[in-house]
Each structure stands twice: as C-alpha cells, then as structure tokens.
C-alpha cells in the first residue's frame, strides 16, 4: 500500500468512526430537548391534577463524562419534567402541591456503536396524593432511535437518542396521568 492509499484508508476509517459513534466528545442531554409540549385538542388531564403537581425527587441520573458516553442527569430530567408539567398546566404554586411526583431513572439502555442508534429509557414514576397514597406507580420503557440523518457524529447521535427516549418517556407518563383516577378528596 503506497502513501496515498494509506491516507485514503485512514480517511475512510475516520469517517466510519465518526459515523458509528466512536468519535467526538460526549455531551449531556439538553433539558430543553426533552420537554413535552402538550398538543391542543389532546385528551385532557383529570381536573384535579390542574395546577396541583410538582416534582419532589429525581434520582438515578448520571453525569456525563466527556470521554465516555452521553447520559441524562437528575437536574436535566427535573428541568425537562418541570417545564413539561408547566406547559401542560399541571404545575402547582409553591405551597399548593397536592400531587408530588417522585422519579427514579432506572437507566438508559444504549448501543456502543451503530448507524441507527436506539436508546431505551427505563423510568419509574410515582405520583402520590396529599395523604401520601399512591395515585400512579408506573415503570415506563421508552425507546427512541436517532439516525445518521439526525446527526453524523456518533456522540451527538447518541445524545439525541437519549433526549428522544426521555421525551417519549415523559409523554408516556402524561398519557398514563390522563387515565389516572385521583381521589377527589386529594385535590387541594
């Protein structure tokens, strides 16, 4: 192999690395990319949830190591869930939280490399009423696939897949909330 062929081979290999996920610095999931915006005309939430919910605890998130892979941390998830609750008209005033939400990020199932990257978020959501009785206890598994068309560099594609998986998870949580039947007495 001459020098020109070597350079071509190295370039091709670098492109493959970038595309498959081994190149680039990992960055944490962005909260604003994980927010769910409630669509007009969508099925409504139970009336007693309106302006009566808050995020109490978020656990299980992980900080991103730039030399490793993108993760979702507790603060990022809390911010995204708070904003999503606000957009849906569910956020309570500071002293009026009748339905606290506890979240446990069980983990993200991520691919090591790949062109289409599918990440599945596994999240436990626990909603209680003002008497500390559980209103909703759900473990939600939500997959999301980011493609090379979404981001060419693998590290960025993995971050997009993480964000999509969390966004899908919050959307699924909202769908479960809409079907929940909170006790009327719990409403403040």
């Amino acid at each position, binding site marked *: 192999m001459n020098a020109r062929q070597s350079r071509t081979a190295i370039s091709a290999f670098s492109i493959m690395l970038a595309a498959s996920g081994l190149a680039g610095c990992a960055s944490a999931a962005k909260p604003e990319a994980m927010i769910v915006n409630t669509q007009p005309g969508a099925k409504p939430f139970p009336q007693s949830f309106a302006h009566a919910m808050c995020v109490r605890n978020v656990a299980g998130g992980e900080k991103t190591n730039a030399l490793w892979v993108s993760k979702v941390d507790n603060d990022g998830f809390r911010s995204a869930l708070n904003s999503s609750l606000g957009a849906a008209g569910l956020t309570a005033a500071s002293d009026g939280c009748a339905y606290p939400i506890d979240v*446990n990020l*069980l983990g993200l199932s991520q*691919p090591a490399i790949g062109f289409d990257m599918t990440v599945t978020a596994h999240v436990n959501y626990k909603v209680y009423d003002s008497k500390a009785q559980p209103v909703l206890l759900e473990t939600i598994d939500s997959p999301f696939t980011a493609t090379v068309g979404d981001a060419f560099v693998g590290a960025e594609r993995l971050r997009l897949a993480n964000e999509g998986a969390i966004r899908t998870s919050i959307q699924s949580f909202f769908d479960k909330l809409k079907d929940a039947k909170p006790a009327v007495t719990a409403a403040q």
Partner: protein
Amino acid sequence: MSQPGDENLSCETLKQEIEKNTAAAEDFVKRDQRVRDGNVAKGVGGAIPAIGILLIGSTDLSNKEQIQGRALVDRDERLAYLSKQKNCAN
C-alpha cells in the same frame, strides 16, 4: 414496581418477596459493577491498534443489571408500603 394483586398478598408473602428481591438486587449491583469494570478495561484497550475497535464495539452499555437491580429496589419500596398498610410485623 406495582403488580396486579399486590394488595391481596399476605404479610408472610410480602416479607418473603421483599427478602428475595433484596438479595436479587444486591446480586444485580455486583454484576453491574463487574460490567462497568469490564467496560473501563475495554475503553482502555480501545487504544490498541486494530483490535481496539473490536473491544470498543463489545462494550456493554445496556445497563441491564443496573435497571433490574433498581427496579427491584423500587418494588421493595412498594411492598414495604403495603406491608405497613397491613400492619404486618417486620
């Protein structure tokens, strides 16, 4: 974490299930740590020419053990709540 019929479990069954889940969760935590250690080694080995890419490609980022372990801890929390509701002796 919550399963249909949980409310009908007896105190003895709740106690047994909590103990079983606790032991299983501890085992998952140990296995998860082994996977993480293996991933670190593969990450370091990724710098080796030629076989490095194979090592990186075999990295296990499924977090399967962590997810199962944490799910069992959450389930135990639910069962402990039910046990308390039923005034079960510990």
